[in-house]
């Protein structure tokens, strides 16, 4: 008998929207940072920190706005993403505020720049802007598929964003890495935004080319080798990554782009051979660059034995300090505000902020943070699984994959698992670009998940429905 059943008479089952779950989780995500803030104040000054309630209310208001926007414009979105981002961002501000209180960092800033300005207020402003951007993404981007139209514009855009820091006069060389541009006194890290823009290009491009890339291939030693001409795109991205690495000294961004491309290529074509080729190419690139670029070589040395060159190399000292931060934290940590992670020096509240987590919150805290990030990644990949259109799938997996690689590269770098790259820990590190870009990323994931989980529109009444009978054998 036929298994085909006519489903047109069955109305769409509305999935629970989970907005109230999100609201409840958001309440936790706001309250926990407020407690953390109080804890730091009590530990450092012995009294509650200034403006604790104003700060708390402000953050609650921001989270509330974000929630209302999601409730109104992305009703079916994943309920976890927003609370996770809110919690991480809130804790990040507390960590930055805690490092602002460090006399050692204040003195260091005074010696280096003549003055010290706290980073936490800026971070709050950036957070507010970022949540506005998040709302903007949801308001303006009614359907993520619209972005398909911008495939090649995105390519151009991401190239511009990547090249900007190298342009003389516009780019700023900060501690060896040319990843900044400064415009009118503001510093922007274009790479953070390029991450999203380039994902649009990859998704759009691969969606169109996936069949050619997947099917036109020869089998060799169990692997499907692509045709030479199909290798073009991956070679180009590879070369671009190497150029970024060489001209901007930015190992992280380079790795991120290439990794993201390989992941998306693999998902689009379902061919394991791409992974193998991608891995071989990145290993080849890494070996060549590692052996030639002094800046990368120093970091590799620092990774291999930070204490061997501790007193002679700044890179080694930083990594060594960071590892000692983690070690000194131990299982339970020194407690908020009671560690000495500021010994790391100038990048303590940006690239190395995870070391402060390690020292003050200990193994327990670090694992909690890693699991929070893991949840974001998992929800992102789940969104990709649920997405119904190939563009959405690719886009979502590209963004989540990039997020995962970034977490791995940054946390792995400060923990001495891999060579240090100098990227920011999403939501935690001080810096506007990072906060804005990552909130935009969450916004896009929420949009895709909303589209994915949104019930199909109720079917139009079928004129045949009255006449068709389903006959079942009794």
């Amino acid at each position, binding site marked *: 008998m036929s298994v085909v059943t006519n489903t047109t008479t069955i109305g769409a089952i509305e999935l629970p929207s989970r907005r109230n779950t999100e609201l409840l989780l958001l309440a936790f995500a706001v309250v926990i940072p407020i407690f953390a803030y109080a804890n730091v104040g009590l530990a450092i000054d012995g009294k509650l920190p200034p403006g604790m309630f104003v700060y708390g209310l402000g953050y609650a208001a921001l989270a509330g706005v974000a929630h209302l926007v999601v409730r109104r414009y992305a009703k079916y979105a994943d309920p976890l993403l927003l609370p996770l981002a809110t919690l991480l961002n809130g804790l990040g501000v507390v960590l930055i505020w805690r490092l602002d209180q460090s006399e050692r960092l204040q003195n260091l800033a005074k010696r280096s720049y003549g003055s010290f300005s706290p980073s936490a207020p800026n971070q709050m402003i950036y957070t507010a802007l970022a949540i506005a951007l998040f709302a903007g993404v949801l308001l303006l981007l009614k359907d993520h598929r619209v972005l398909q139209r911008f495939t090649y514009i995105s390519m151009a855009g991401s190239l511009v964003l990547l090249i900007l820091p190298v342009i003389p006069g516009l780019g700023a060389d900060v501690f060896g890495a040319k990843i900044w541009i400064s415009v009118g006194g503001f510093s922007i890290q274009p790479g953070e935004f390029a991450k999203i823009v380039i994902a649009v290009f990859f998704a759009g491009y691969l969606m169109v080319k996936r069949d050619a890339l997947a099917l036109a291939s020869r089998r060799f030693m169990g692997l499907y080798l692509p045709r030479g001409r199909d290798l073009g795109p991956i070679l180009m991205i590879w070369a671009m990554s190497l150029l970024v690495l060489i001209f901007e000294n930015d190992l992280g961004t380079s790795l991120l782009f290439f990794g993201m491309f390989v992941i998306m290529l693999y998902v689009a074509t379902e061919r394991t051979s791409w992974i193998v080729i991608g891995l071989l190419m990145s290993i080849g690139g890494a070996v060549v660059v590692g052996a030639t670029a002094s800046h990368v070589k120093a970091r590799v040395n620092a990774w291999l034995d930070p204490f061997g060159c501790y007193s002679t190399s700044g890179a080694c000292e930083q990594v060594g300090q960071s590892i000692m931060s983690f070690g000194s934290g131990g299982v339970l940590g020194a407690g908020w505000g009671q560690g000495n992670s500021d010994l790391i020096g100038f990048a303590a509240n940006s690239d190395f902020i995870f070391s402060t987590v390690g020292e003050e919150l200990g193994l327990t805290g670090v*694992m909690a943070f*890693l699991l929070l*990030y893991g949840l974001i990644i*998992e929800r992102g990949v789940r969104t990709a699984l649920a997405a119904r259109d190939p563009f959405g799938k690719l886009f979502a997996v590209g963004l989540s994959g990039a997020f995962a690689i970034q977490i791995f590269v940054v946390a792995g770098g400060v923990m001495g*698992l891999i060579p240090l790259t100098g990227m920011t820990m999403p939501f935690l590190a001080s810096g506007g670009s990072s906060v804005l870009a990552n909130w935009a990323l969450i916004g896009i994931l929420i949009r895709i998940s909303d589209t994915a989980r949104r019930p199909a529109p109720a079917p139009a009444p079928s004129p045949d429905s009255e006449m068709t009978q389903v006959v079942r054998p009794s």
Partner: protein
Amino acid sequence: MNKPLRRISLFCGLLVLALLIRTNWLQYVQAEELSTRKENRRVQIAQYATERGNIIVKGNPITGSAVTNGSDYKFKRTYTEGQLWAPVTGYASQAFGSTQLESLEDGILTGNDDRLFFDRTIGMFTGEKKQGGNVITTLNPDAQRAAFEKLGNRKGAVAAIDPRTGAILALVSTPSYDPSRFAGNSKDDEKAWVELKDSEDKNLVNRALRETYPPGSTFKVVTAAAALEHKVVDDINAPTDTPEPYILPGTKTPMVNHATGCEKASLNKALEVSCNSVFANMGDKVTRDKMVETAEKFGFNNDKIDVPVRAFASVYDKKMSRDGNAQSSIGQFNTAATPLQMAMVTAAIANDGKLMKPYMVDQLTAPNLDLVEKHEPQEMSRPLSAANAQKVQQMMVNVVETGTGGNAKIKNTVVGGKTGTAQHGEGNKKRPYAWFISYAELPDGSSPVAVAVVIEDSEASREDISGGGLAAPVAKAVMQAVLGGKG
């Protein structure tokens, strides 16, 4: 596209898992090693984060703590009369580490010692800040000051012991240094540190414990003790069979005597005028192995003399040739002793043959002054019998009464001593070391002080350098300071 997506999700999971494993490795497995690494300044930051306890001499602290601003370290160590007490306290510097008592008793001083666990726990509940405990020393401030002032700007060291208990009464090393000068970590501190570290005078070396010198003629009391103990001599006034000149056994080299009348001189006479030939002869007769036995009972060849600061091992060679042994018996050749060692020798003789273990920490107390530990005097060994000890005492008193040690005479007090002038350098070219060891007796026959003085180099011309001339007055001042307290 879902199959590769699931694999990507697995891959992302593995990335997070790798990070989780790494953090467990760092923060659980390696935590202890990383948190105590020498590069980890947190160790020192914690060390100076609370006020350190004090090192106390006769009720008065000789250390203190000052709050420092704009530094990693909250408290800085201060020292009262740093130069005077540096050989006792050592130093505790934020930048350059710590030594001696400051280092050895760090647990008590910072309050981290396990024995202070109870105090810390109470403090946690009452909200009191963590405090350090105190180290109460055995030193006698009068004796210390007398030795330091008498040595003046000459290079040398003094060690004084209470023979009855082994308590160290004075420990001086000159030229000294003021640990306050580099207790912090500023540029000035660094300058002072570098200056001291590289100084030609080796200011940072504690000469009383950590420098060995050829003991010269002061070693003759050890040889005398060995001769009596091993029955080579019974009557100290009986003539010996020492020829003049005395040829070192197995060689053609005669032993040089600076004194006259050494031929067949009795032990008593030989010590009085410091005959080299007689004691070389005695040492040879006792034989090397038995000399080693007695010397070791006095504390030679022991590298574990902790007071609690570890003193360098004094050396009496166990494998030297017969003529080497003969030369060593007068404190030359490769015999070497710390001032503390010679003070121990004197103390053992003055205490009727019983050597007490030297110590300088009497008590450790908690921040609230509760006793944590009290030192009980311990016997270390018996290098010679009481009867023989009294014979050596008799000879040493004779040295002071009629011999080379006249400068140590104290009115109405029985004093025993021995001078020494040790040659050193190739061909004895360098200035000799002036030694003096002595003890003073109370009317009841017990001795409250034994002292060893060494003066390394002085501006006096070579002929004038002698233990009796230079070192004895210093020893006398120390003994008087100790006796003064007893009335």
